[in-house]
Structure formats: structure tokens, C-alpha cells
């Protein structure tokens, strides 16, 4: 009895804990690497008082942008997953379920595997991000257009999956004809990575990410109403059609943003919301959205740290690390619970 009551009192404590852990991992990410940077030097460099050019360059050009990207990337993916899980009332939905990443992958595949045929000689990182963004947004627009028309949400879910399959099919055909060298790069891209973020990219990611995360928080109230299903939400005065478009648009835009810059990063979007729900013991979105932001950012930061350090100098794909660390935690938390999600 009163299980939820005891959870409720823990919530502020847990949120602070997640925040502190996030900061801790963030600092670790900047300090530790192939070159260890002592705390004192870190502070100096950050205060623009460092005079070691190596430290300056490592921190400002490599580690800081990457750590920030991991934070915003994790937060964005987790919230995107949360929005869609509430929207579809389905716990196994992730941000890629509507085909956003497949769309991005397809355009990237065309660029990387068949670009030579189209006369593209050099692929700059910016071109790559642009291509991924174009692919992701193309699918987003398609999904938004469809979501206004379908009566049942499950239909939308299945259509999203089908679009995903279609895009993957096209990518796979391209893979069959691709050259070995290109293929290796492409496969690495599909596994996602936060390495090589430029400040321009981080700027776009943080600015757009902040706006979209803020917008998703504004949806708290109708999102809560959606917990009882669309019919109840409508009977309480929620404009379902508008809400559908908002949710699909915000969650897809968040996913598109990350996929464009970091490639498809698996698992965070699926597990972030679950971890938040299970540790806090609530589905109340006003608490869950901030918690998911913190947890998503925290886990991604930690996993990126592991990806860099575990088998250094070889860097592991971030998707492999997130799944490897996250899946057992989700399973353990689920087994401990009596209540279903």
C-alpha cells in the first residue's frame, strides 16, 4: 500500500541525483581521454586562462563540443521516444518507429554509396548532415500529412514501420552495389557517433534542441490526458487533430536533428523514458519530461565515455554501448516491478 506515495516523496531527490550524475559524467568526459587533463588545468582552460595550446585545443575543439552533443542528443532522443510512447500508448515504441532514421539513412546511403555516380567527389561532414536532415525531414512531412488523415493510431504506427522498411530496402539495394571502402564508412555511420562535432553543429543542435524540448514540455497537460486514450482526451476538450500533429512534428524533428549530426543512435529513445518511469514510479508527464531529459542526457554521456575509453584507441559504436549498458538495467527494473508499464 501507498507504494506510489513513497515514490512521490523520492522524486525531487532522484531528479537532483540525476542532475548531479549528469554533471559528473560531463566533467569526466572532458577530463579523461587518451590525454588526461588535470582538474586545475581544466578550470584554467575553461576560464580562458590556460596557456597550454594542446589542452586548449583538446578541450575547446574536441571534448567540449562532443560532450555537449552527447547531452543534447541523449535528451532529445529520450524525449522524442517518450512523446511517441505516450502518443501510441505503446511501451515498445522508439523515436525511429515512424521511419525518421530510415529516411535519413537512405539519403546518406545515396550520398555515400552512390554519390560518385552522381558526380559528388568529396563528402564534407556538413553535406552528410544536410543529407541526413533532408531524409529525416522528408519522412517527417510525409508522416505528418498521413497522421492528419488516419482514424486509428495503430494505422499510423504501421504506416511508419512500412515507410521504414521501404527506405531500408532501398538502402540495402544500394549496399549490394556498393564498394567495400564506402560500405565500411556507411555502416559505421549507421551505428552513430558523437565524434567530430563542430561548434557550428553543436550550436544548431543546442538551439533547436532547446526550443523543441521546451515545446514538448508545453504539451504536458494534453499528454497526460492522452494517458487515458484519445476518446477520453477528446471528451475533456483536447483538440486531438492538432495534438497529433504537434506530437509527431516535435518528436520527429528532435529525432531528425540528432540523426542528422550523430547518425541513428539506438536504444536511448526506447529506454530513456522507461528508466525514468521505473525509477520515479510515475507516468505523470510534468515530472517525466524533465526526468527523461536528465536521464537521457546522463546515460548518453556515460555511454559516450565508455565508447571512447573501453577499448581505447579503438572507439566503439555508441549504439552498441547504449544497448549493452541499458538493456540489462531496463530488464532488471521491469522484473522488480509488480505493476505493468
Amino acid at each position, binding site marked *: 500500500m501507498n507504494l506510489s506515495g513513497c515514490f512521490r516523496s523520492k522524486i525531487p531527490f532522484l531528479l537532483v541525483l540525476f542532475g548531479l550524475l549528469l554533471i559528473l559524467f560531463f566533467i569526466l568526459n572532458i577530463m579523461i581521454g587518451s590525454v588526461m587533463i588535470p582538474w586545475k588545468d581544466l578550470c584554467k582552460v575553461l576560464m580562458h586562462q590556460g596557456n597550454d595550446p594542446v589542452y586548449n585545443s583538446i578541450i575547446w575543439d574536441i571534448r567540449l563540443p562532443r560532450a555537449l552533443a552527447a547531452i543534447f542528443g541523449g535528451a532529445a532522443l529520450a524525449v522524442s521516444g517518450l512523446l511517441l510512447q505516450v502518443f501510441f500508448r505503446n511501451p515498445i515504441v522508439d523515436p525511429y518507429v515512424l521511419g525518421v532514421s530510415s529516411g535519413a539513412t537512405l539519403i546518406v546511403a545515396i550520398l555515400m554509396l552512390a554519390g560518385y555516380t552522381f558526380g559528388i567527389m568529396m563528402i564534407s561532414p556538413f553535406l552528410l548532415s544536410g543529407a541526413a536532415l533532408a531524409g529525416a525531414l522528408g519522412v517527417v512531412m510525409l508522416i505528418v500529412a498521413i497522421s492528419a488523415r488516419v482514424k486509428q493510431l495503430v494505422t499510423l504506427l504501421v504506416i511508419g514501420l512500412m515507410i521504414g522498411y521501404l527506405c531500408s530496402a532501398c538502402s540495402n539495394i544500394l549496399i549490394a552495389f556498393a564498394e567495400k571502402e564506402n560500405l565500411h564508412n556507411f555502416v559505421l555511420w549507421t551505428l552513430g557517433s558523437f565524434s567530430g562535432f563542430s561548434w557550428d553543429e553543436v550550436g544548431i543542435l543546442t538551439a533547436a534542441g532547446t526550443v523543441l524540448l521546451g515545446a514538448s514540455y508545453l504539451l504536458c497537460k494534453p499528454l497526460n490526458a492522452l494517458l487515458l486514450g484519445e476518446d*477520453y482526451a*477528446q*471528451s475533456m476538450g483536447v483538440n486531438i487533430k492538432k495534438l497529433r500533429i504537434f506530437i509527431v512534428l516535435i518528436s520527429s524533428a528532435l529525432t531528425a536533428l540528432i540523426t542528422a549530426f550523430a547518425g541513428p543512435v539506438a536504444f536511448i529513445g526506447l529506454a530513456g523514458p522507461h528508466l525514468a518511469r521505473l525509477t520515479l514510479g510515475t507516468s505523470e508527464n510534468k515530472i517525466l519530461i524533465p526526468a527523461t531529459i536528465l536521464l537521457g542526457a546522463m546515460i548518453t554521456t556515460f555511454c559516450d565515455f565508455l565508447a571512447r575509453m573501453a577499448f581505447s584507441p579503438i572507439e566503439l559504436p555508441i549504439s552498441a554501448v547504449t544497448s549493452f549498458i541499458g538493456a540489462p538495467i531496463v530488464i532488471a527494473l521491469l522484473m522488480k516491478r509488480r505493476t505493468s*508499464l
Partner: protein
Amino acid sequence: MSIIQTRKLAVGYGGRTVVGDINLAALKGQLICLLGPNGSGKSTIIRSLAGLLAPVGGSVFLKGQPLHRIESKELSRMMALVLTERLSPGLITVFDVAAMGRYPHTDFFGRFSEEDKRKTREALCLVNAENLAERYFTELSDGEKQKVLIARALVQEPEVIILDEPTSHLDVKHRLEVMKILRQLTKEKGITVILSLHEIDLALKSCELALLVKNGKILAYGTPEEILSEETVADLYGIDSAHFSNCLGGIELKNSGGASSFVLAGAGSGAPLYRLLNKHGFSIMTGVIHENDIDYHVGTAIRAAVISEKPFEEIRKSALNKAVSLSAQADCIIDAGFPAGTLNKLNVDLARRLLAQDKTIYSLRDPEEARKLFGTNEGQLVFCPTTVDLMEKLKSREAGVIEQQTASKAVCNA
């Protein structure tokens, strides 16, 4: 003025009419139910009244305004729903589920004022769910969930609550509790309640108006006392294996063939016995029963052969003779242990005559009283202290008869 009214309403999906020509008018504080078999279109009507489904034709008026013209936020302050689908809202407490009803009353961020909290608590108290407030909704039983959903609807502070089969999946206690709560809402808060039901008896006992729906048509609309007759109910559900009795307020399963029994009954001693015999496949004859006796109503409802006498009249010789000749066809005779008084003293005579004809009577009566009433034909009276005992004896007798028949056949063949 009616709170909710429909004019020539036709409901359905995608332009196809499921039920047409619905004209109903609900006043403030009325409890109105929709009755009909599964798939008759009750839910479609409910969804259309709730504005979840656009009508195919005609219109719904809420306080004189056409429903589709009312803005969704305004509508949500006038009308609340309890739907029949099973919910899985995740890790949400009962209080939070009920509190969702404040949706149309809270600000953009859904912030809760003290008043919102108080109203939520009040609603939970009203449905006797205040002690569930801190539990997770998904942990509750079906009955508790239904009460919480009613509280949620109530928290919306509507003038109309529409419920789709609120008593399905519930046990008797919760079914009655839910109906009691709904009645209370209509009486104390003046809320108009419209619901679909499967239980005819509940409809009869708690609703002001009933709308009978079958095969896309409105079969009848009016007070349940008026329209729920034996014929309309049989027609509504297309049942001929059972009969609805308005007077009894319930359904009795129709009696059909089998070993025949004659029951000496009266003053309610027969009713449970008829049902028991019916259940075990006996065909039933009974007499002589006064027409103002519950045994008469149950007997006729299950379609037993009833020899009856006018209310408050002494049983006449003609009725007695009929009973004697009818009982002659019976395979077994049972004395239900009716109280013997002046008006039915001929039933005692009936028993004596049967005993005089060397018949065996299975009696549920106290042996001493039986000897006093029927004389001393000790061997012919088989006393059964309980109905279970009675059924066992009747069954073993039946088995014995069959054995004898096969034995005699065997002898003949030899």
C-alpha cells in the same frame, strides 16, 4: 427544458446508418438507459451523443444548442464520459486519474489549485474510493476502476454523464454500487445520466426512461415499467428459451421436457423448487396456486403447468379435480412444505387423495407436521430435510425406474 435531446438522429460510421430515427429527450437529473442485444448499436448511439462520432443524419442538442456547434472545451464542461474500453494509463495513481477530469478547468500548464484538489477528493469520496487515492490505477479491480472513472467524470463537473456499459465485467456488489452512485448523482447533483446496460432488471429498478434498440431500430422508448413487458423483452433479445417477468423484475429460464414432477406448493415455497427442478431437467406441473402467490408468477414465467385459483378465494373443487388428474401424469410428486391455512386447505386434501391412490410423496416438510396434516401413511411419505437430499432421491428413483424397465425388457426377451 431538456438537457439533451435528439431529433431524427441517425448514427453510424462513414455514412452508413447503424441506428436511425432516434428521438429522445432527457430532463435534468434523469437516468436514462439504452437496452439491446450486443451489436445492436448502443455504443454507436452513446458515441454520437458524446460527440465522438458525427451523426449520419439529424442532430443532438445539448441545452438547446446543436452539439457540433459547441466548442470542445465548453462541451467538456457540460458533458463527461465513461467508456467501456479497458485502460492502461501506466504508472498513474487513482488520485491523478480522477484529477484528469479537472482538465477543462485548469490553466495551460494544468496547474492544480487547492479547489481542484478538494473537488477531486470530494468526487473520490462520493464513489467510496477515497482510500484508493494513493494506489496505482492499474492495480485496481474492475469494479474499483469503474468507480474511479465515474469519479473522474464527476470531477469534470458536467451536467450530463454518458456511460457505455458501466456495469459490464463487474461483480454484483460493484454493479449495484455503481448504479447506486449514478442514482445518487441524478438525485443529489441533478446530473443527467445516460448509459447503456445489459441487465434488464437493473434498468427496470433504477432508470427513469429506457430506450430499446434492436437491429438498427428503436423498438420502444418510455418508462421501463411501461415498455419492458414480457413480449418486448423476448423480442428485444430474440430469446425464447427464457421469459422476462415484469412483476418479478427478472428473467426465468423456460421449462422444457424431461421426467415430469408435480409440486404441491404455495406462499413462496414452490418458487425456488421450480427453479431447482427446472435446472435438473424436470418438467414441472404445480397446483393449486393462488394467482396472488409468488409461486404463481414464477411458475407461469418458467412456463410450468400451473393449476391456479383466483386471489384470496378458497380453492374450489373444480381446481382440485384438475390438479388430481394432472398429477396422475406425473412421474413424481413433491410437497414443497407449503403452509396450510383456510384458503388452501384443499391442497392438504389433494395430498391425502394422492396418498390414498398409493402414490409416493417426497416431502420437504418436517415429518411430524406432515404426519399430522396428511394422516399416517408413513411408508408413502419420503422425507427430505434439504433440497439437495430431495434431488438425490429423485435422481436415484429415476435411475431405479430405468433399471427396472431394462430388467423387465430383458425378461420379456427371454
